[in-house]
């Protein structure tokens, strides 16, 4: 049951806002390895933007550039109209960018609930002494955030494991918790690095639903890396295609799907 085109367009245009993140001529290399060469693309508010490409194309590196883990040797990042200078990942987090990682980067020794609560840390105001006393405002704040965290737990349907240390969880659930942690920050831009790896179709369906819901309900802009073409083509508004660190395609899923370069480099023929 493919949604018919006009409908999708209509919805998309209603939703999508101005450019929120503009990446200009980004180049990044590690020693001799050129991870990204002169890449430009933009991300619009409220859109779901996918990045695809073969292994080692530079997708994860791109995300790392966006949220300040790597600093590109060249190029500019314009976030909400302002050029970003010398920003580290803390700064990126502060400006409302959250993300998940390809190799799960959960805090292994902590419970699911605590992991999700860490996502809210930038919103916590009470100081250290108050927290030590666990008194008055600090406690109220803690509980208020707990409520938020529980909302996310409900949303992701992981109630049963909220007190389990994440290290013990199976891979798929860990991915979900990681998404929860990113969501907990209530980010403006959410960067997802292969959120659906290691899931079966049913779980992917659920995951897609989460992503779409977040996008709908909170208006979060989403940048997504995924190798499952079904998912990418179905849920993203626009797709960037990278290969060997270069951009070889950019456009709506349909445009990308019919781009010959992309087919050669990545999609193959089926």
């Amino acid at each position, binding site marked *: 049951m493919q949604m018919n085109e006009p409908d999708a367009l209509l919805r998309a245009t209603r939703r999508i806002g101005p450019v929120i993140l503009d990446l200009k001529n980004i180049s990044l290399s590690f020693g001799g*390895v050129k991870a990204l060469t002169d890449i430009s693309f933009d991300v619009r508010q409220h859109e779901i933007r996918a990045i695809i490409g073969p292994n080692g194309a530079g997708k994860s590196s791109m995300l790392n550039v966006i949220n300040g883990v790597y600093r590109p040797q060249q190029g500019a990042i314009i976030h909400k109209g302002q050029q970003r200078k010398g920003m580290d990942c803390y700064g990126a987090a502060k400006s409302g960018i959250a993300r998940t990682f390809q190799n799960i980067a959960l805090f292994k020794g902590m419970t699911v609930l605590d992991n999700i609560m860490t996502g809210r840390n930038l919103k916590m105001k009470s100081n250290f002494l108050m927290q030590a006393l666990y008194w008055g405002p600090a406690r109220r704040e803690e509980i208020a955030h707990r409520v938020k965290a529980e909302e996310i737990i409900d949303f992701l349907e992981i109630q049963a494991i909220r007190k389990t240390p994440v290290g013990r969880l199976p891979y798929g659930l860990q991915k979900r918790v990681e998404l929860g942690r990113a969501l907990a920050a209530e980010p403006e831009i959410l960067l997802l690095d292969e959120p659906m790896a290691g899931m*079966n179709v049913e*779980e992917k369906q659920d995951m897609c639903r989460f992503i779409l819901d977040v996008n709908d309900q909170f208006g979060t802009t989403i940048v997504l890396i995924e190798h499952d073409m079904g998912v990418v083509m179905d849920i993203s508004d626009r797709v960037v295609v990278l290969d060997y660190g270069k951009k070889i395609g950019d456009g709506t899923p349909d445009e990308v799907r019919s781009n010959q370069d992309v087919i050669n480099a990545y999609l193959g023929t089926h």
Partner: protein
Amino acid sequence: MDTATAAAPPPYLSVNNIEVIYDHVILVLKGVSLQVPQGKIVALLGANGAGKSTTLKTISTLLRGERGDVTKGEVQFKGERVDQLTPNELVKRGLSQVMEGRHCFGHLTIEENLLTGAYTRNLGRAELKESLDKVYHYFPRLKERRASQAGYTSGGEQQMCAIGRALMAKPSMILLDEPSMGIAPQIVDEIFGIVKDLNHKENVSFLLAEQNTNVALRYADFGYILENGRVVMEGEATELANNEDVKEFYLGMSGAGRKSFRDMKFYRRRKRWLA
């Protein structure tokens, strides 16, 4: 659940009614039995947390390192009980595992990673080179990155490295835990192509835990479906692929064929065979 028919070849690997407990208290496998006949590809399917990885780790006896205990049952490989062996002895007997979550040696280069895979084989220089070339032939991307430390390669490259490393041991039976994870689609096909290839040409048997049910069932001969630490269904791969329930829950196809991910309106429409 006795499925062994008289016609079936004797199981190459057989897991008999194993029960596994983590940390002394967390019961994960509740009596899992399965067989892999020689020269066959068997798929192990199931949702997140069903116990696929645990089953594979039990077979390769890597469980001990994670504080898991096999409290019941036994594992036989080539007619020999192997649950008390060390992983090294198993590799020597021809059973290799590709672990979930890549597990490359971060400080070693890709090539060194691959070479460690041949540790048990005591190869001469030429043979080693030949084996390496074979892996590079399968994964040209690895050849490009051979001199980089594995810790600095991309997720997919690491996954290829992990698979290539297991191939270097020239096993007669491979346990593959989610080989397609994080791999670009055309490489996924390639990986399964390799599986098929090895299976055909070198009679290597496979047990693969895979989320990509679609592909897995396409290549496998036989499948088991695991849920909550129990085998809930098993059968010929084609049979499973045509089973309505499997279609709906694992292949994402309802009566009307494939549905767009965008159109899924509800969560958890999951039906369970067991509570």
